[in-house]
Structure formats: C-alpha cells, structure tokens
C-alpha cells in the first residue's frame, strides 16, 4: 500500500523537475544574459499574481538579484545604471502605457522665487535644442500621445500616455528624453511663459476658493517652503529670470533626484529600454536636503474681506508625515469625520441636515512633511457663523468621543472594498504606484492595506486624533465679507 502511494508522488516530482529543466533551458536559450533565478524566487513571483501568472509572456522567470517584485500588482523595481529608481507594473488587454517621471523639484524648492518650479515645468514644453517649439509639439502630438507637465509642492512631474506600438511609443520616448536633457530654454519663450503664468495667477485668484487656499498655506506654513501656492506669487514670478530656470534645472533635474514609474501592456524588456532612453542621459547631481519639519502654531482666525456671495472656510493644521506611524488611524478617522462620500459626519450635519453647503469635506493631504489635515466648506455669507459653530462642535466632539462602532465598521468596509476599485484602470494603477514610490511607502502595504485598516480600533482613532489633531493649533481662514 505504502509503495503505491509513493510511486505516483515520485512520478509527479519527476514531471515537475523535467518541466523546470525545460523552462530553464528555454530561458537560457532566449535570455542568455539572465542569471537563472533560484526556485524560491519563481514560486514567490508566481504567488504574486491572483489571476493569470503568465499574463505577460516570458516575464515570469526574470527577476534577478537587483530587481524586486512586490505584491498584489506585481510591481517590478530596479535602478538604472545611473541610479534612477524604476517602478513597473505590467497590465493586460489594452495597448496603453502610462509613464511618470518625477523630480524632487516641486514648489517647495522654489527658494526665494516662488513660482520657479512651475515655470521650469512649463519651459520643458517649449522645444529642445534641435527642435523649435512648434516642431516639437507637432511631432509629439502627431503621435497621438497625451502628455502633461506639472509642478506640485513636492515634485515636478512629466507624464506621458502612449499606445504601446513601438512606431508611436519609441519616437515619443525620444522626444520626452530630449525635453528632459536638452530643453531649448530660449529667452523669447521664457518671457512669454512668464507672462502666461502671471496672468494665470491673477485669473485663479478670481475664485474665493483659491484666495482661501493661498491664505491657508501662507498661514499654516509661514516661512516654510510650503507657504505659497505652487503657482508662486506675483512678485515671485516677476522676479524670475531665465538664468534662474537654468540654474534650477541644473540643481534639481538630475539622475540622483529622479524617479520613473511605468504601467502598461508592455513587456519588461521594452520597459528597460524605455527607462534607459528616458533617464540614462540625465546628468548627475547632489540630492537636495530634505524639507524640514513644519512647526505648529497657536490657533487663530483670519478674515479676508472679499465681495462674494459665499464665505469660504478653511480650517486645519500640519499633520501627516512621510511614513507616518499613525497613518491608518488618521486615515480611518478622517474618513469617518469628513472624507467618506455621503456618509461622513461633516456631510451629515452640515449638508444633509442643514443644507448649509454644497461641498463640505475634510482632507488629509500627503506631503513630505506636515501634510495638512484641512476642513473646507463654503456657505452663504449670512450663515457663516452658524456653519463655523457646527464644524467646531463636530471637531471637538470627535476628539472627545471618537467614532461610533457602526461608523467605524462602515468606514473600514468602504476603505477595504474600495481599494481594488481604486486601481481598476491603467492610469489609476500608475498614479497609485507613483504615490507609493515617491513617498517611499512600503510596496508591501499594497497587500497589507486590508489588514492595516481592519486592525484600527475606536480607541486608537480617539487617542491618535487627540494627539495629532490639536484644536489649539487649528488655523481658520475665512474669505468673504
């Protein structure tokens, strides 16, 4: 009896061994440069996929010692030879690739010239050393690609979305590579772009919402690199010269300050080529000093008079850090308090019960340091005090009493079950991947999301809320008459 049991087992393992040898042989044949991975790596890799392990043919046996594969989304990570980290997620069924190249060169790096990083971003679309603005844009747009350049507080991002066909993608990569390393930066284009930015700055301040945002950041982050709109200030923009842009490029747009994130229906070998073409020609440089901690300050209320029908109210303070140990309790707490769509306390009390505002929310914004917790709402002038009282009561109650058990359960269910929906397109996958990579969130937390949220307790939220959302540090900005 025993013998009978053993025999088929041996047969099975023999079959597996034969299969492995065959696979290895094929691998060696087709990928001669490849160091054969140990079996454990193969098993680990396969376990990452929830569906089809061979979704991208030929990919399965490639990870080498310098390249890691993480989690649910099968994130591939390696560094280019000049040290730029590359993150890649293969996706299926659509011939699309999304690419983000970023630099730690956001408006926090503007220095004494607020607006410099956004001007830098715009100047990247003004032609290259060998192509005029018109020729460059005509070629790029003729390929049917979508592209976008922007500066945020923490980064400057160049985004490209292309069809994967090499006849479209390859020339697009050449063009983006040229704008990164050899942008024209001519005086004529600079003068024009600078004027556009100044007009744009004046335009957005027609909106009371933007006036409130500007004052909020000026107040919360006074004398800190986050203390102005990413667009800059009018005086800052006026003061910028072309040489400043050139210096900024030299200081920040270099390999040691870059990150490349790619998702799409494309083979990893091609991604390696793309990565090399995009960033290996970037010059070297020094990593900038990290952005410093944001100090809290005494609570205050600031009124900005403006002729409007509504008051815009921003209430908040710096809270979130990079890799914040309190992240999950803060996330769930904020969801219950003011973020959960149609279910938050702010929504229920300010909008559903009283009809005082169309949009009333609290946000927990991620920044390198001191990302703000901020409540925003807008209401007709005469209701300002009423709305303000309600929000302040909600805020102090939440700190004292914490969430109700059913609120906590609803928030957890929503956050957990929504997670797969938040990565249901190629673009969303790439955006999320970028966020993880740029803010150095452990890639493993892609998988741990559910567990981490599940673990959050009422007591934890209450404790963290009391400790981190400090009413004595709240800055209140009210724009209106």
């Amino acid at each position, binding site marked *: 009896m025993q013998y009978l049991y053993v025999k088929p087992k041996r047969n099975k393992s023999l079959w597996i061994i034969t299969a492995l040898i065959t696979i290895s042989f094929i691998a060696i044949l087709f990928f001669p440069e490849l160091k054969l991975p140990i079996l454990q790596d193969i098993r680990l890799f396969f376990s990452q996929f929830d569906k089809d392990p061979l979704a991208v043919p030929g990919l399965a046996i490639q990870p080498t010692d310098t390249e890691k594969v993480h989690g649910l989304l099968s994130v591939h990570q390696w560094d280019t030879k000049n040290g730029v980290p590359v993150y890649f997620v293969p*996706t299926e069924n659509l*011939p*699309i690739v999304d690419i983000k190249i970023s630099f730690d060169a956001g408006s926090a790096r503007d220095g004494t010239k607020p607006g410099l990083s956004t001007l830098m971003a715009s100047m990247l*679309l003004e032609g290259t050393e060998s192509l005029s*603005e*018109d020729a460059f*844009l*005509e070629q790029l*747009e*003729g*390929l*049917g*690609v*979508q592209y976008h350049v922007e500066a945020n507080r923490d980064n400057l991002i160049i985004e490209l979305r292309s*069809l994967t*066909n090499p*006849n*479209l993608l390859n020339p697009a990569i050449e063009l983006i590579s040229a704008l990164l390393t050899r942008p024209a930066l001519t005086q004529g284009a600079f003068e*024009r772009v600078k*004027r*556009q930015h*100044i*007009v744009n700055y*004046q*335009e957005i*301040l*027609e*909106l009371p*919402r933007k*006036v409130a945002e500007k*004052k909020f950041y000026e107040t919360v982050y006074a004398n800190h690199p986050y203390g102005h709109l990413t667009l800059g200030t009018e005086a800052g923009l006026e003061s910028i010269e072309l040489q400043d842009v050139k210096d900024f490029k030299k200081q920040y747009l270099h390999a040691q300050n870059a990150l490349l994130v790619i998702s799409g229906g494309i083979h990893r070998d091609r991604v390696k080529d793309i990565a090399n073409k995009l960033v290996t020609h970037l010059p070297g440089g020094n990593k900038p000093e990290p952005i410093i901690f944001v100090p809290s300050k005494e609570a205050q209320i600031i009124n900005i*008079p*403006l002729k*409007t*029908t*509504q008051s815009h109210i921003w209430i908040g303070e710096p809270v979130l850090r990079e890799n914040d140990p309190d992240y999950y309790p803060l996330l769930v707490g904020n969801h219950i308090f003011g973020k959960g*769509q*149609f*279910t938050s306390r702010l929504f*229920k009390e300010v909008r*559903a*019960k*009283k*009809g005082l505002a*169309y949009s009333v929310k609290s946000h927990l914004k991620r920044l390198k340091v001191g990302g703000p917790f901020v409540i925003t709402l*807008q*209401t*007709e002038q005469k209701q300002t005090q009423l709305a303000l009282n309600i929000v302040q009561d909600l805020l102090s109650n939440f700190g004292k009493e914490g969430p109700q058990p059913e609120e906590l359960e*609803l928030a957890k*269910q*929503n*956050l*957990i*079950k*929504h997670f*797969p*929906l938040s990565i*249901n*397109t*190629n673009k969303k996958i790439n955006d999320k991947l970028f966020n993880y990579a740029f803010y150095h969130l452990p890639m493993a937390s892609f998988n741990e999301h559910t567990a981490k949220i599940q673990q959050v307790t009422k007591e934890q939220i209450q404790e963290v809320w009391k400790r981190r959302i400090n009413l004595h540090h709240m800055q209140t900005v009210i724009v209106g008459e």
Partner: protein
Amino acid sequence: MIKHFFYGLIAIFISNIAWSAPTTHSYILENGLKIIVREDNRSLSVSSQIWYKVGSAYEPRGLTGISHALEHMMFQGTPSVPSQIFFNSIAEKGGKQNAFTTKDYTAYYQTINANELELIFKLEADRMAHLNFPEFAIMQELGVVKEERRLRTDDNPKRLAYERFNMNAFMGGPYSHPVVGWMRDLNNLKIQDLERWYKTWYAPNNAVVVVAGNVKAESVLKLAQQYFGPITPNAHDYKALASVEEEPVGERHMVVRLQAKVPHLYLGYNVPSLKAKTTSKEIYALKLLEVALGKGRSSRFNKMLVRGEELATSVHTHYQPFTLYPTLLEVSACPAPNVKLEKVEAAIIKQINLLKEELIENDELQRIKNRVIANRIFARDSLFYQASELASLEAVGLPWELSQQYENDIQAIDAKTLQEVAIKYLEPNRLTVTYLLPIEEEIREID
C-alpha cells in the same frame, strides 16, 4: 511629401491597434427600458449607470433648474430605503456613486465590485418608482442647490459671463438657460413641481441603463428584468421633442462687466448636432475643425495666437456633437497683458477664415485625426467612460452603435469637406461674441 507619408503611416499604426472591438449587447425590456452591457473583464469592477432623458433643455420658463434639483432629491430616499441607508449600503460595499445633470439628460452612476450589481439595480429601480418628497427635504436640499449655484457660478466671473454668453448664443431656445437654473426660479421651486417633474420623466420607457465591466450580458439582463421589469411604463409621449435647426440670425456682440481680474473672450458659432442632421459628415468635420483650431498645443490658435503673435495666454475650443438640439462650436480666450479683446477676436476670426480660404494640408489633417482616434483608445481604459459614451448617445435618441463607427466616420473626412463645412457654418450670421471685462474699480487688497 515625406512628412505626409510619416503621419499617414502613424495613422495605420493607430488604426491597427484601435479595435479589438469590445463586446456590447443591448436589450429592451417590455416596459421600454433599454439595457446596454459592455463586457470588459480587465478588473473586478463595474460601472453601472442609469440615464433619464430629461435635462434643462426640457424645462419651461419659470421652472429652470428643476431637473438638477430633482437629481438632488433622488438622494432623499424612498419609503423602503431612507436616504442614509441608501448611502451606507453602497459605501459598505466599497462603492462610489454620484449623479450629474446636463442640458439633455440626468445620469446616476456607481462604481462597485461587479458582484454588487444586484444591490445597485435594486436601489435604482426603487428610486425610479418610489421616491419620497417630504416637505422638509426641499428646504434643506434647495439650500444645497443654491450653494452649488453660488459656488460654481455667482462667485466665479468666468462662469457668470459664460452663462450670459449662452443666453445670447441660444436666443431663448432650450439651451439658453443654465442647467443649475436661475436663482429666482430656485427660490420659487415647490415640492409639488419636483414631484410632478419626477412623475413625468422618471419612467422605464424614458431611461437607459448601461453597465460596463466584469459582467456577463445575460446575467445583467436577468437582474434588470427582476428589478426594473415590474415598473410600469409611463403613458407620456416621449417623442414629442422636435429638433429644429436654428437659422443663422445675425452676429451678436455683448459686453459683461464683472468683479474679475483679467478680461476674457467667448465666441461661438451656432452649428448642428448629430441629432439635428441627417448627414453625419458635417458633424465629424466640425469635430476636426475644433481639434485643428484649438485642441492641443500644436493647434492653430496655440501656434499662432499664444506662441506666434503672443496675443493670448490661452485659447480653447469646444464642440460636442451628440446633443438633442443644435449646439455651438465655442472658442474661449484669455488675452495677453495689454492686448485688447478686439485684437484677439480679430486674430481668431483670421485663423477661422484661413480654414475657409485654404485647404488644410493632408499632413495636418492626418495628425489631428490621429489624436482624435488615439484619445478614444485611451478613454477605453475607464469603465465609466465606456458606459457613459454609450449612454450619452442613447440619451439623446441616437443609437449606441454609432460609437463603433466613430473612427471610420472621422477617417472619412477629407480636406475638401472640412473647408466646405467651415465656409457653411463658421460665418458671421451664426456668431456670438461676449467680452468679460473687469469692473474698473479699486480691487480690495486681499493680502
């Protein structure tokens, strides 16, 4: 010549990729409800949408904004599902939901795990037939709607000027009032008006359900039969809306002075929509004119006005051909500092006239076609987009199948057609121009 060959080649690359045609099925239930299913199993999720064929274009004088206000009321609950239960039951499944109202339709949508489609159908069927209209809710919800109007329009000089531009461009027609409605009408709106509006327009035979995602068409149909099937159709004759092409009445100029910081220019030509035209050619030619003139940084306005002559800091164009009534090809522009709006307007007209006088080169034509077609492939990344594209056609009485021949219709337009259409429609008698000028008064220091 070489260039032309180059972009032509790119067109071949793009069209080869374009359609591994997605599988789409459609059905009509006995009560008249149309069901469209797009099977796309790239993710585990689904976009479920229900579109009612009613929007601000349907509203009579004095009841402007009622369609949008009713959209808000649709979240007020039913006898069996009170409002907060409605919100919570979708939230606890990880779903996201919302709604929007336009001139032509009102749409409700959810993104949720495909397994939860039954829940969505149950909720949507319930609120299609049994919505509550409690007197107290209107006070609260109309408060919210008015705050929305203040936020989006009243405190936003550009939107306010644009609202007035539309009054002038549509000359009292169904598109001349804003979707959100005039404040005076919102102030007078009664709960009985809303209930009557609901009973008139919210019926299975005036709606279309579109589902895109990880589903099988037959099971969606079965669920639809189960939940929407029992709802009785409305006897109302929904075909009554006639779509007439507007005659070119003459050039309309308007100056709006508001509390703004920079001047702005709005310009629009009365042009047909696909609904109003038997021949679709003109519509696709207009779409390509929109792109050639103002979509993207390589477009003519950007090349000549923003870069070239540096007269404007931004210029945009807009044309959406799938509407119930004739619509506009719009241009909006922000002048460069110290440049008069008259000068920007003249430069825009000059570019438009160039398209009438000279045939567009094949190279440029191919480039803009490439962009239009590639953008549609990109959009297929989103389930929401896929569903709403199908629904937006059906909701204005066009067959969803049109979306599948869009590429061919675009490719078929030649330079000659483009020129003819420009000559026919981009002419002064169809033109409306609005200047937004900042009020010349001391603007209070905000710092």
